[in-house]
């Protein structure tokens, strides 16, 4: 039972024919060939699949794609500036070398962008609270927190 659906992703409209109950994540990865959002748990508890939905960081692994029509979706790729330069948060992750395997990095960057949009100068507690939904198994959290502080300073 496929349906025509229009999605607004990274500033572009996409007309797709998909099963409307498909979780957004699979559509982003497979139909739009975006690598940013990652499959981690499918239960909205690890954050690997996060995207910005109208500026708010949300997991994309469960929400049915049909409920996304008319919403503004931004993925990791969409944070890159039109001239190809990185968003300050992405840049800060590079500068702090805030990754090991990097599998969690998509969700970390997305959550950090949303956090800094709502709080320009988060303290340690606010950073932890803002990032609490995102898991990292490599133990890179301390570097990520430094990257967020750096991005807050530099933007």
């Amino acid at each position: 039972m496929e349906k025509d659906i229009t999605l607004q992703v990274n500033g572009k409209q996409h007309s797709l024919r998909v099963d409307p109950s498909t979780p957004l994540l699979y559509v982003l990865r497979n139909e739009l060939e975006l690598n940013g959002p990652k499959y981690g748990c499918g239960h909205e508890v690890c954050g690997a699949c996060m995207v910005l939905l109208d500026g708010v960081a949300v997991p994309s692994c469960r929400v049915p794609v049909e409920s996304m029509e008319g919403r503004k979706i931004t993925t990791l790729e969409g944070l890159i500036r039109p001239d190809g330069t990185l968003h300050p948060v992405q840049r800060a992750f590079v500068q702090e070398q805030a990754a090991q395997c990097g599998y969690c990095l998509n969700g970390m960057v997305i959550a950090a962008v949303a956090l800094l949009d709502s709080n320009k100068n988060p303290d340690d507690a606010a950073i932890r609270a803002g990032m609490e939904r995102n898991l990292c198994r490599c133990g890179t959290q301390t570097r990520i927190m430094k990257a967020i502080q750096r991005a807050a300073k530099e933007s």
Partner: protein
Amino acid sequence: MKESAYSPQQSRRKFISSLGCLTIGFSLTGTRWAEATPSPSALALPGSLTIEDRIDAWLEVLADGRVRVFTGKMELGQGIRTAIAQVAAEELELDLTQVEVHLAETGRTPNEGYTAGSGSMEHSAMAVRHAAAAARQQLLGLAAQHWNTRPEQLNLSAGQVRKTGTNQVLSFAQLLNGKQLEGEVKPSVKLKPKSEYRYVGKAIPRTDIERMTRGESVYVQDIRLPGMVHARVVRPPAYRARLEAFDEKNFKVPGLLKTVINGSFVAVVTEQEYQAVQAQQRAREHARWSQPQPLLPSGQDLEAYIITLPTRSQNVKSQGTVSPLDQPDARTLRASYYKPYQMHGSIGPSCAVALYEGNTLHVWTHTQGVYPLRDALAKMLNMDPDKVHLKGVPGSGCYGHNGADDVAADAALVAVAYPGKPVRMQWMREDEHAWEPYGSAMRMEAEARMDNTGRISHWRYALWSDSHSSRPGGNPGNLLAARYLEKPFNPPGSGYAGGAFRNSEPYYAIPNYQIDVHTFEGPLRVSALRSLGAYGNVFAIESFMDELSVKAQKDPLDFRIMHSTDERAIAVMQKLKEMVRPVKTGPNEGIGVAFSRYKNTATYCAVAAKVAVDKATGQVKLQQLWGVIDAGEVINLDGVINQTEGGMVQSASWTLKEEVLFDQQHVSSRDWTSYPIFRYSDVPIVEVAVIPRPHEEPLGAGEAAQGPTAAAVVNAIYRASGKRIRHLPVRAEEVAG
């Protein structure tokens, strides 16, 4: 070898552009070289040169003058690509951008076995260093010939040879003139003096991190091939359950292309990924499985149970006599410790892509060992290993033997049953949690006697553990799926016992000691988890050292130093002392320390932990961790720091939170709610100091912190609360009061 018919120009272009990254692309070209026996002189060479000493097996000069380096090791998030590039650029005087690193691939890179045991620097980087030095010699020789001058009159920089004092330059590619580097690396090859290093030892940033932040294709999960189909595996409800019936007639789901049933191995193939997810769920309703014996006799406590199991027992090492310990008195101490099953818990569940076409099987995999897995897959499928081509592509961090090999076997079985199309096999979260091979549960018993100066005179230690490695190693019985086939391959029985007693000897001068290991076969599937038995053994030994230091009324670090004879061990502990000396502790706060030398032959690591304990609730807040590490010669300083920071945080999570639970039927820790790990609110501040030893062997830093961190955390809890935690994970009820 001819290009596979599968890759006509158009799909190849699409393939490459959709991958956007060279290291994944161009992988269907097949064999670059064949495995050969190294020359007899190779045995005198360092690292992996003993298995492959031809220069061109390690390095290739590209037409544009850049150099491609081949490593048989895998990128696991430890930054090996950058470290290997640093070493090659150093010897060949290249810019880092002129070096490309090709990760493990059968038929293309040397067979370096597994990327494990923190051996990549020691084995692969050292081979590359010497091969690059030999290449440098050869290139200078060619240039000297060309200009009819002596090599001393030549200068190497940025991929070019210059005749000193002239403007005459030749690129590496021009010098080779269409040929490749030749010959073998000789033991006498002259290395660049370490005092002239520009890259090695520095904190060179990893280039893959920017690619990750851009959402470029980095992982095996990101591979998209034309015509690719999606697969999921339908695992039984219990390890020993067998498929009795599958109602294929009534199994209908949208997009279903094939149901693969081979004995008790069941998998579904669909057009779209979400269809595969749904098909996997629906297939469970159509499968009837046998009911095997329960995993544990009911009501049995695991720790009590494992010591009742039949064991293979062996003495690890003994010296002098420990009989005075048979008469316990005021100078003796005795304690037992326990660690539960713990899981790797990769954030991205395992994934593989496989394509069977024209009698050849291609598998893109995040395995830690492409060659051993190739051999196991070939045996499972009854194929010629030359017709099985594996390409290593990074996955989510694995920390040992997780589901990587198993998912590759699943993908291979499906690809062979559904030929001609690339099959993407993705494990779901539950598949990884419930079926990965865990780090074994362990029980450790320690006894010691001290003389009246507080010196340990006698030490007895025994441990109970299951195996710590059941990697495929060419044996299909170690691949999960192979055990369920119509013609099943049986697990080869107990794996590597050496993993269990890794670090079971204390690294201290004790005149009389006895160390015994008892290996059992426990209820859960097990294999290598970061540091293997060292985590449990160092947790026990270093907790016990803390108990002894209290009894001897000595400072815990001084107590360890007084039992140490190795200057490098003493140096990391002295440095740790300096780091924590200024730290103040408030009420209900405490600092604990621990030390170990990984494998007793490799990296030195001392760790301190600071905790605050809420006595009423028993809640432990880990505030800070300090680590000091001596990993010998450092290749990438930031790499060592990053690995150590991460290792400490991960070990603290294991110690404070983690335990694989199971019921009568199977593992019940099936998601992040039933198997919680550290979140941001749990993560301490971490600080790592590195003691560089440029003239020592490079040792690898990935596993050194696991054991000492566990002990430092529980020792800190003791200092904060007076409660001695001997059973992991730490439980609030044992800390409260």
